[in-house]
């Protein structure tokens, strides 16, 4: 029995107590706790903005908490710095792989602790390569050529390099931050094998993920964060996923989606026999007025390319695209916009907002001709429209003239959405409309999409969030390796079968 641990039960590798952290007046953590047992795999889940990354940054010593304590192996660490965290044996596998693309595998592993010759400042390249190959083989059973360049490796291989790098430091606590975001199922399985092995070696693991089924698969305990507070720590193997979700969301997921009766009208978009070499083949689909159609598929499935072709950003090799029964005149984005199409791109922050301009300017910049009165702009009509959109999208802004820079990320995204929605088009192509948006904003966006459909617009939503599609759409298309493999009503399917279709499970296993 140790006396260090207040609970006295199982010794804790890590105990974070009552952590508070404010960023510019916004409370990111509000008395959050995390207790991780030694040698366990501990999951950490929560919506975007729940405080997961803040918690991890406090642990890494990147930020200092405003209040609360962090104890590692029972010893309270009052001044945690990145260096100190490393000394304590806490290491991080980041989501974005921090590796130099032009380095070899061996160089990446040993950067900062390079083996030297005779203790002189002299690189021992041969030893570096030999040891790197040995480590990769022993820990992961993979034969990565130690001389291969990191930039040429697959995402999963890069992940292995990153993990091996952390293992070189003999970590006591290893924190995985969304490690599977870029991995395929087979690679995820092998990662889980690795994590199991690390756990068997007595390494404590904190595992952050969006994928709840992963948590159930490998974690001994899971802590759920919501709005900067830990709402509970449970055993994921005995807790139904639904309970975890409601802990995260604090509202029934059904309530997130509007369920208004929609009646589909005549087709607004019909695509027949569309083909783009190397991207997709023989794609035919229709979107009717008043209908919300969802489309999904892995990256490389061609779903995104279909969207781009419809909007004229990419040139198809064959096939027909008709808007309201008439072929588009010319295939360019401006022809598409002229034909009543609107595209809300995924990378809204990159392409969507001018940070120094006001909410009003950003909102109406793409639809100024609607407010034209002769050569001038009807300011009062413009203001009325902007105010309406601010109200409808619940954009949190000091006012319509506030610079978009001063808005939070989620609200900036809503501004971009408002910009495209103010065009009043007949067909909306939405590319991941809610990615990176908090739950509250999601609900508002869903309501708005439903409203657009209610007004008779056709809507094609591209999303990787299957629950979103199931909740929002009337019909769902799944693409796999360039073909539509599923097209049916949303009510007649579920996420499992969609996932199977999208990953080609049962079709063929590709290496």
């Amino acid at each position, binding site marked *: 029995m140790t006396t260090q641990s207040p609970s006295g039960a199982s010794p804790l590798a890590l105990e974070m107590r009552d952590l508070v952290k404010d960023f510019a007046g916004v409370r990111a953590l509000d008395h959050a706790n995390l207790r991780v047992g030694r040698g366990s795999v501990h999951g950490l889940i929560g919506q975007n903005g729940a405080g997961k990354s803040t918690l991890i940054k406090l642990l890494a010593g990147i930020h200092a908490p405003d209040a609360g304590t962090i104890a590692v192996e029972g010893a309270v660490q009052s001044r945690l710095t990145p260096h100190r965290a490393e000394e304590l044996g806490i290491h991080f596998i980041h989501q974005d792989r921090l*590796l130099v*693309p032009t380095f070899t595998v061996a160089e990446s592993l040993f950067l*900062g602790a390079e083996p030297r010759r005779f203790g002189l400042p002299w*690189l021992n390249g041969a030893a570096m390569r030999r040891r790197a190959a040995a480590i990769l083989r022993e820990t992961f059973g993979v034969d990565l050529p130690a001389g291969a360049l990191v930039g040429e490796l697959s*995402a999963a291989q890069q992940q292995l390099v990153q993990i091996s790098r952390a293992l070189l430091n003999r970590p006591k606590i290893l924190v995985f931050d969304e490690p599977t975001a870029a991995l*395929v199922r087979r690679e995820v399985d092998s990662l889980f094998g690795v994590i199991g092995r690390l756990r068997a070696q007595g390494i404590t693991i904190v595992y952050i993920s969006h994928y709840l089924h992963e948590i159930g698969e490998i974690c001994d305990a899971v802590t759920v964060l919501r709005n900067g507070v830990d709402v509970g720590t449970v055993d994921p193997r005995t807790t139904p*996923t639904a309970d975890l979700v409601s802990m995260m969301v604090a509202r029934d997921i059904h309530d997130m989606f509007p369920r208004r009766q929609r009646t589909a009208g005549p087709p607004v978009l019909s695509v027949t026999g569309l083909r783009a070499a190397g991207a997709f083949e023989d794609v035919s689909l229709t979107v009717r007025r008043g209908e919300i159609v969802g489309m999904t598929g892995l990256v490389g499935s061609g779903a995104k390319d279909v969207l781009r072709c419809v909007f004229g950003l990419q040139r198809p090799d064959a096939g027909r695209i008709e808007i309201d029964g008439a072929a588009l005149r010319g295939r360019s984005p401006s022809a598409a916009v002229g034909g009543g199409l609107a595209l809300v791109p995924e990378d809204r922050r990159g392409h969507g907002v001018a940070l120094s301009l006001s909410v009003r300017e950003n909102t109406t910049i793409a639809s100024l001709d609607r407010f034209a009165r002769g050569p001038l702009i009807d300011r009062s009509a413009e203001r009325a429209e902007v105010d309406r959109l601010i109200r409808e999208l619940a954009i949190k802004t000091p006012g319509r003239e506030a610079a978009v820079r001063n808005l939070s990320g989620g609200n900036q995204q809503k501004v971009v959405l408002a910009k495209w929605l103010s065009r009043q088009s007949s067909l909306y192509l939405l590319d991941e409309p809610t990615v990176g948006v908090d739950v509250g904003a999601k609900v508002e966006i869903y309501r708005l999409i439903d409203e657009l459909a209610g007004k008779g617009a056709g809507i094609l939503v591209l999303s990787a969030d299957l629950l979103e599609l199931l909740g929002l759409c009337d019909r769902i298309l799944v693409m796999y390796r360039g073909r539509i493999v599923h097209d049916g009503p949303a009510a007649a399917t579920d996420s499992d079968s969609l996932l199977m279709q999208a990953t080609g499970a049962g079709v063929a296993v590709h290496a």
Partner: protein
Amino acid sequence: MPDTVQSHIALPVDVSAPRSRGADTARTLVRAGSLLAFVAVFVAFAVAAPGFLTAGNLANVVGQVAVIGVLALGMTLVVVGGGNDVVRGGIDLSVANTLGLCAAVYATVLGDGWGDGAALAATAVTGLLVGAVNAVSVVWLGILPLLATLAAMNICAGLELVLTHNTVVAASSPLLDVLAGEFPAGVPVLGEVLLGVAVLLAVVLHLTPAGLRLYAVGGHREAARAAGLPVAAFVAASYLGSGLCASVASVLSVALLSGSTTGSGDMLLAVVVTALLGVVFSRRLVATIPGTLLSALFIGLLINGFQLLNISSYWVNGVQGVLILLVVAATSMLRPHAR
């Protein structure tokens, strides 16, 4: 809708996208093509230009190249530490004018009756000071290297004018006599110095942990920081190194021209080309010391051949510009990227 509420099930982002064999092949082609172009230019001039393939002329080329080559080696350090992103990456536009200023300092100090030792020290200090100014503006003031070193370039040009009143300052000293001479084998001493500097830098950059770390700092700054490297110190050191190389080159230039001359800024384009062109000789498409040395010789041969063929030297500038475009385009398309 499924009855049971499921987790946040989402598709994994990417996947089996196999890494492109195409990029590998293209990189090999670029490398082979560059070497081939090197040989082709050499052969073409040997055939077409009278007197190109004589020992005297080739020695002359090495001598001419020495100044630009040493400058480019210094620039290489900056490119390695800053990463070769054309806009935000490391570049030192001040090198040519630093050379001008250093040459003026060297010649002036000699002219004031001091010996080689004092003149060398003053020159080295001048070069290091310019490097320090660059380091401060890039690392601590956070100014884009492109702009920061552009400012330093103008400061150097101005100071040089103050010192020389836009005239040639003749200089002679025992050291300059040695530098202007030849080794028994007929190789100009300037060439030997170029090789010496290259070997020294190659050892530091390619054989020591410090060199590897400088590459990490330039290749992925966040990764370097995560590895616990003092990123700022490495970047600063690369600018100091570049300044020091400029002062070494200035002494070579004074030896070659028997004094400080005006118009050193004209060398800038050639230096930039040399440092960027060297990239195509490496498997990783990064700047390396041997690569820079090779491309210095290539540029030297090009200029020399044009002179012998009586092609206006204005064309040399044009060709260099085209080379910059080609190299930058090829490397930015082909360099391996992190995913």
